[in-house]
């Protein structure tokens, strides 16, 4: 599975409160959450983001509260993947459980610039900067994590198990 898109680049310690401010947590509707995604950090984000685009950020992305709404909002905004040197522990878990691909790669996170066009292959972990002609390798997801992401999150894999009558 691979994706391609333009990059939105942000700094380190992007916290769950700027990803989706607490004042909007009275809904669990993904489209509604997406409308306010990154609002307190980059108000123009939501009007510019295109399906398939990629978030690249500094270390400790997703720090703060344990809200599952944060990866839900990012995913519903159209973002196909987040690349950062590191993720906060609970965000990391929630992102995968919600079916949002995230990749840890310090070199890529540093070298890729805002607006670059980048492709990512989740099976191999290969990240290619098409604008600058550079490639990087992140540790690829093992098959069961790929299954979660391809099934649109843990819920999706539950539904698949159910379908197979397991």
């Amino acid at each position, binding site marked *: 599975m691979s994706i391609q898109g333009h990059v939105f680049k942000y700094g380190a310690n992007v916290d769950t409160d700027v990803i989706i401010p607490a004042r909007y947590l009275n809904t669990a509707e993904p489209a509604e959450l997406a409308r306010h995604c990154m609002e307190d950090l980059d108000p123009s984000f939501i009007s510019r983001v295109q399906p398939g685009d990629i978030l690249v950020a500094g270390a400790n992305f997703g720090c703060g509260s344990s809200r599952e709404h944060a990866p839900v909002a990012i995913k519903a905004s159209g973002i196909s993947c987040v690349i950062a040197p590191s993720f906060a*522990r609970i965000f990391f*878990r*929630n992102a995968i459980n919600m079916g949002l691909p995230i990749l840890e790669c310090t070199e890529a996170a540093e070298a890729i610039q805002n607006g670059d066009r980048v492709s990512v292959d989740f099976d191999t972990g290969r990240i290619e900067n098409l604008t600058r002609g550079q490639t990087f390798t992140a540790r690829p997801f*093992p098959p069961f*994590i790929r299954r979660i992401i391809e099934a649109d999150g*843990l*819920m999706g894999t*539950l*539904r698949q198990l159910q379908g197979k009558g397991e």
Partner: protein
Amino acid sequence: MAMTLTQKILAAHAGLNAVEAGELIEAKLDLVLGNDVTAPPAIKVFEAAGLKTVFDPERIALVPDHFTPNKDIQSAEHCARMRRFARDKQLSHYYEQGEEGMGVEHVVLPENGLVAPGDAIIGADSHTCTYGALGAFATGVGSTDLAYAMATGKTWFRVPEAIRIQLSGQLKPGVTGKDVILHLIGQIGVDGALYQSLEFTGPGVAGLSMAERLTICNMAIEAGAKNGLFPVDDATRAYLAHYAPERVAKNDFTVYEADPDARYARTIQIDLAAIRQTVAFPHLPENTREIGSFDPIPVDQVVIGSCTNGRLEDLRLAAHWLKGRKVAKGLRLIILPGSQRVWREALKEGLFEIFTDAGAVVSAPTCGPCLGGHMGILAAGERCVSTTNRNFVGRMGHPKSEVYLAGVPVACASAVLGRVAGTDELDA
């Protein structure tokens, strides 16, 4: 490939010979836990996915402990949803208030013989890390994780690296496991062990009681850790013989040891004899100060209980320091035994008489005030010394109230003297 204790347990549950830090694995679980706050949303997810059966009705524990006895209609509805699910799926480890085996989740699971060395356990509660005291891998997760685990008996983990905490020496009288963990959090900070295991080892381990180890592992999460872990020794085996005789009889557990050449992110030495009575000031568990290093702070309420310090040993310690003494005029001392079993034993041992004579009130086993639920909420400007584990803004009530975290001896001394105080200041 040399592994830490956590890595050994995870590798075994993933069916792998070896794992390394950073690796993503899928692991089989021995026990899956939910409570009245986190299980209802998980049940919703479970039902929305159209699932009908759980992976094993013997390996799921649902404990209504946070807002029970139900404090309002909403909590009653939550508990009712859980009770229906437990009945419908015929779960063996659903506990009702008043029943033997009921109480605060992290007190009752080990007491009910559901935790043994080498187990891999997840709970939709951040203090699930408590069970590391028995040599089990245990960590907190979210509600979606809980739903998935209830259905499949599996979850995924990223393998953590570990910080090794090398313990030596012996605690001085009046100093407890709580002081040890507060000291450590004060030293490394609330994110000092982010995404890592805290693995306790060294000659100092032998002198720590199981109650103390449970308290220490309980607060591993307050240093950001994924889990806390103690090696298995004679004290662990004696605890298991008492609380988990069935698993001992069936030899149904595995003792793992860290490889001697395992690599650690870092090693921290702690001389237990040098630890003093410690208090975490508002509003973070890392704001620690030793008793005697600050000006008098008047206190309105003292709480003794919770999954951190609500065990029988804690209540015995409280009785020791409160016997023949009186709670300061105008102060409220609230004691919450951690489980029905603790409650009954404390009653039998005559502890309640000591508490009542001192002027304390004894509650039913519940989380209650620990998370600002009920049974002792603070007003604006009020201060509380509490044996619980979090002192965040508003944790026990009004956002302008303050919580000072401490061990049982400091809680008792503070209750008697009406200010944050150590036991040194109590009259002999």
